[in-house]
């Protein structure tokens, strides 16, 4: 019962996770760390379909992992930085802002589409519940 709503719910969860991860990546885009340690690692969302029930209809999507990008980052010459090493270098995360913004739009639109289907499915189930109403 109400399977379509829970299927869209898995989509909402997945794309909300993606939005959270992108927000965190962008919040840390200017982090500076000493060259002795790792740079902030951008995270990515790994997802796969949830296998279907007996009739073959799928049951949504699930986040299977949040892999991180390389910890090497990029070295930047910034001798005045308090964490700079003896040669004046610091480590910054290797985050491509245009990639993150592109992902942000994809995640946002996909979230909206799933929210839309929750509404449509609610109408359908309401109609089904109302069969025979007022007789």
């Amino acid at each position: 019962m109400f399977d379509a709503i829970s299927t869209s719910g898995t989509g909402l969860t997945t794309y909300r996770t993606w939005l959270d991860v992108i927000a965190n990546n962008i919040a840390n885009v200017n982090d500076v760390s000493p060259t002795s340690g790792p740079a902030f690692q951008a995270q990515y969302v790994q997802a796969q379909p949830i296998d279907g029930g007996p009739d073959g209809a799928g049951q949504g999507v699930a986040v299977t992992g949040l892999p991180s990008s390389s910890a090497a980052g990029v070295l930047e010459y910034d001798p005045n930085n308090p964490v700079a090493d003896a040669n004046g270098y610091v480590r910054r995360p290797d985050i491509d802002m245009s990639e993150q913004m592109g992902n942000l739009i994809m995640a946002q639109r996909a979230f909206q589409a799933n929210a839309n289907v929750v509404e449509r499915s609610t109408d359908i189930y309401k109609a089904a519940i109302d069969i025979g109403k007022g007789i």
Partner: protein
Amino acid sequence: MLDDIASLSLQAAIGGLATRQRVTADNIANVETPGFTARTVEFESSLAKALAGGDPAQARVGISPSDAQAGINGNNVSLDTEIVTATKTGLQQQLLTGALTSKYGLISTVLKG
């Protein structure tokens, strides 16, 4: 009296539409999943055939993979098509449940005398 051809075919169609909505929800949930193949639901032709044979209960709901062209990540979900399907299925469902209610209303009128 409650399982005449009209009621049975309406019930079969409502069941088919419910499956279509579930499959559409799944397609949209996987709109960004790499390598995902969309599914489509077809029950109308089977229902028409079953009706021609006089027994709408013989109608089957078929779920099959979509043969639409996949994008660069191997995903072939077309979001605009899916949203149209979701909206259309919702409206059809309201129409059919309304029809079923009217049908039961007739029976109810007869019962009340």
